[in-house]
């Protein structure tokens, strides 16, 4: 075994870790005496540089299959699909680093960025692996960094409370996940997803397997904030500093959904079952169908009464988790994975953009309530226009990416060649009805921004130029991907065709 060779295969992760250590080192030594804003800027731009270099490493790396000792056990499953997801994750971390330029919540700058980069490393490992152990370890790396990042605002009691709730809930769900994964190992004596699938293929669904499935779903359901494992989300989204919340809402979701899809479709592909209206068959599909139904209903209904934009975004995240879970139920795995990836990518871009706008507004008005956004369109037209794109994409209004994403999710779930065509129509009807409800609360935000007059003593909102560039780029990409979804879709489909 050649460590050099191994490092070659995990180059992006290694580069990100090096960046984390580098930022920490530079902040604690060279920038020791410097004033806060220059420390912040240096650390942020170093993080961005680190992400960019890692991105370059992913994109420019030649297509290679790791040797058997890595790919056989599923430790490292490097495929075009995983490279694509890594690119998305690194881009999202880059955007999160840009958001930190807008915020002022801590003196421990080096530590914060180091944690952010380590969380990113965790995400990158999470999407490259098919081994149960490594899935758990990287998930924990990601989660622990996120818990700490949530608590970083020491002056805000809500931040500490949010972090504690997130940690306690997450710790329990991680325990469930580990137990479920160990049951899977116990049933098959295998740690690698494809080999587990081979062992389970055609097996009867015995009670132990059912318990294992439920526990795994509980563990991953927490990460993606599906009902009933969503209770941490509103507080975490509201209490955490803006960049932490942005990373939780975007990068963590992308990685978690991807690995959930892999575990379910690849590992448990033999025991899918069916959630059709009159064609119930036992498996994980009915479980996820139930979770999806609960998430879209509870997420959308709870968001209606929210007065804080961050909590509104949290409940909307729960609802969107529901929509993505619908796509996972697809009969054709390629369609399912493609729709999930498309939606989660565009959703993450939208989330990060929305949180960026929230960060800017919060920083000046010290308040994330709806009223802080009043008259924003007259104060900051570019920011408002970008926010409009993000909110409407979340609501599923064409020609934005959110609409096409939802359409594809529903089509993937509905289209099956089985004996009950249109079997999952009940779920689609529910999801569409709730989606109609969601327009109400997104329009409430936009009403504040565009319709309401500015209050007299409104603080001037000024965003950093870098943030504006990022926001315009994000909004532009949502618009372009909505009008020409094929730009992203063909790459996703090609990557999926090259191997799951």
């Amino acid at each position, binding site marked *: 075994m050649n460590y050099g060779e191994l490092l070659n295969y995990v180059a992006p992760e290694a580069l990100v870790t090096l960046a984390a250590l580098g930022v920490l080192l530079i902040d604690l030594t060279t920038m020791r005496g410097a004033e806060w804003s220059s420390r912040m800027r240096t650390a942020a731009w170093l993080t961005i540089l680190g992400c960019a270099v890692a991105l370059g490493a992913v994109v420019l790396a030649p297509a290679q299959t790791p040797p058997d000792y890595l790919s056989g056990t599923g430790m490292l499953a490097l495929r075009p699909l995983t490279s694509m997801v890594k690119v998305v994750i690194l881009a999202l971390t880059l955007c999160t680093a840009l958001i930190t330029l807008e915020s002022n919540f801590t003196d421990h700058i080096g530590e914060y960025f180091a944690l952010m980069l380590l969380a990113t490393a965790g995400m990158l490992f999470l999407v490259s692996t098919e081994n149960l152990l490594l899935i758990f370890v990287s998930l924990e790396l990601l989660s622990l960094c996120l818990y700490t990042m949530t608590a970083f605002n020491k002056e805000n009691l809500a931040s500490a409370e949010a972090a504690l709730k997130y940690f306690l809930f997450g710790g329990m769900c991680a325990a469930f996940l580990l137990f479920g994964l160990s049951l899977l190992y116990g049933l098959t004596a295998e740690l690698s997803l494809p080999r587990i699938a081979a062992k389970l293929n055609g097996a009867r669904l015995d009670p132990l397997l059912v318990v294992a499935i439920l526990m795994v779903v509980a563990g991953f359901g927490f990460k993606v904030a599906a009902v009933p494992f969503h209770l941490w989300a509103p507080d975490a989204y509201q209490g955490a500093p803006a960049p932490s919340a942005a990373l939780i809402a975007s990068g963590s979701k992308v990685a978690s959904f991807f690995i959930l899809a892999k575990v379910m479709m690849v590992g448990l592909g033999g025991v899918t079952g069916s959630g059709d209206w009159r064609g119930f068959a036992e498996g994980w599909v009915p479980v996820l169908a139930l979770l999806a139904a609960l998430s879209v209903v509870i997420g959308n209904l709870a968001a209606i009464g929210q007065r804080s934009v961050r909590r509104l975004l949290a409940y909307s995240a729960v609802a969107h988790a529901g929509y993505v879970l619908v796509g996972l139920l697809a009969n054709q795995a390629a369609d399912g994975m*493609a729709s999930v990836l498309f939606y989660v990518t565009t959703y993450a871009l939208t989330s990060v953009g929305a949180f960026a706008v929230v960060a800017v507004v919060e920083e000046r008005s010290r308040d994330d309530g709806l009223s802080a956004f009043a008259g924003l369109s007259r104060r900051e037209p570019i920011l408002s226009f970008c926010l409009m794109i993000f909110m*409407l994409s979340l609501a599923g*209004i*064409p*020609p934005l990416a959110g*609409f*096409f994403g939802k*359409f*594809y999710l*529903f*089509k993937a779930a*509905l*289209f099956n060649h089985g004996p009950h*065509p*249109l079997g999952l*129509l009940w779920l*689609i*009807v529910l999801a*569409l*009805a709730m*989606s*109609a409800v969601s*327009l*109400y609360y997104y*329009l409430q935000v936009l*009403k504040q921004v*565009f*319709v309401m007059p500015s209050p007299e003593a409104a603080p001037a909102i000024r965003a950093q130029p870098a943030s504006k560039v990022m926001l315009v780029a994000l909004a532009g990409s949502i618009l372009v991907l909505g009008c*020409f*979804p*094929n730009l992203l*879709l*063909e790459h996703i*489909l090609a990557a999926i065709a090259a191997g799951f």
Partner: protein
Amino acid sequence: MLAWTIYISFLGAVALMALKPGDARGARLTALVTTLAGLACALGGALRFDPKGGLVTVAKASWVPALGLEYHLAVDGISLTLVVLTGLAAVAGVLFSWNVEMRTKEFFAFYLALIGAVYGVFLSFDLFLLFVFYELAIVPKYFLIAIWGSTKREYGAMKLALYSFVGSALVLIGLLAAYVLAGAHTFNLVELAKYPFPREFQMWAFPVVFVGFAILAGLWPFHTWAPTGHVAAPTAASMLLAGVIMKLGAYGCLRVAMVLFPAGLQDWASPFLGLGSWRDVFGALAVFGIVYGAMVALVQKDFKFVIGYSSVSHMGFVMLGLMTLTTIGLSGAVLQMFSHGIIAGLLFGVVGRMVYDRAHTRVLDELEPMRLNRAMPFAAFTFVVGGLASMGMPGFSGFVAELQVLIGAWKAFPTFAVLAGVGILIGVAYTLRAIQKAFFGPGPEELPVAMAGSFEAASDSGALVSVLPPLAIHAIAAPAELASGAGTGLSGGAGSPQAAPDGDSISTPERLGAALLMGTTLLLGIYPRLLLDWIVPAVQSPLFENVLKGGGR
């Protein structure tokens, strides 16, 4: 050529955003140029259109090959009629909004985006593309009403947006189901129409998609957004809402619901409460809408509510015509779509722009003493012409359309035809009532001096000036640049009478807009074949074969 109607509108909206914030004049001119260009493209395409040629593809490109989605624009006689309607309504709307001063460029940007989306719906023949444009129209409507509207505008805007979105959700359910059942490889309307969907599927898919579109078409009992929305909206938005947006719904009912699922119109296994098929159900609802809308309009106190409910009533004729499943009924329905679009635009233009902006009230009882026929003769003339057209007076387009619908209804459901006739009678009643109360009220014979005196007294006593004397109306300025020799701004209620003006203060853009609309309805009333030559061959095309056969029996 016709595809440029869409592109020009969206380009215009983008160009408007690039203007300086305070530049109201530039915004108006840009908007006018854009809408005129759109109308020119529409008419140009119309001149080149050959009715015998069947469906003419305007643009076709692969959009998302993996899902079989295409960017497919095509036009037949029905689409062309409605595209021309949109062009005319758009130009008239801009002309009637010449006096918008607050956030002008944003107003026209949303307006042009809405117009572009509407053109897109009428030209799309790929159902996914049609749906994209259909939903795209919801957001500009919301902002137009919420920002520039009047009575209960935020409530009206949100109600409209949510009702429309729920309707779209219903439509999407049906479309998704149809698409998936047909193999999920195309959304092309013509091809999906040929696919033999199972009868049981069509029996539920048809009402779902039909109701989804009918919500926007103002079918009773899904019409409740319409009066609230029309009243809350600013003039141009009301004109578009009643004139064009409601037609989007009716067009969808015809083009999508009836063409895709004709078996849904067949008789049920057993009648239910005297109704034997979805056709009977929707025909009954349409007639109910005609009579109900008319009766409610008869008792309204607010001028704009009268017109709003009359829109519901007239759209009932469209839906009745659709349900007759005869050539004459269907072509009458399409002609009524065009005719009502023009007439509603005219009526809302008078009520919203000419009357409300000057009298500052829409309450009929308050308008009565103002004797607006003396104060604004042009407005009175326009409204009388519009009212006659709305009543269905021969010589105007409304007559031809309603006649055809009634003939078709007589063949299909005689009872409904009689009830619709009753609806027309009530229509005459409410229109004449509105004309009388708003314009020809029995005020005092003498004008300026007495009223100026009472005006001073009213303002001295600090009473809310709810009854502006006709003289003060002259003093309310039309937009400075284009006023035709009227007085200057209202001098803060000080009450010193201005000199008696010559000519009323209706500005040139309003006159042009009114002339455009009146001319169109008159032209079509005298020579309806202009449109019928397009519509009838389209209705008799293979696409509607199953529909005309009473549901493909």
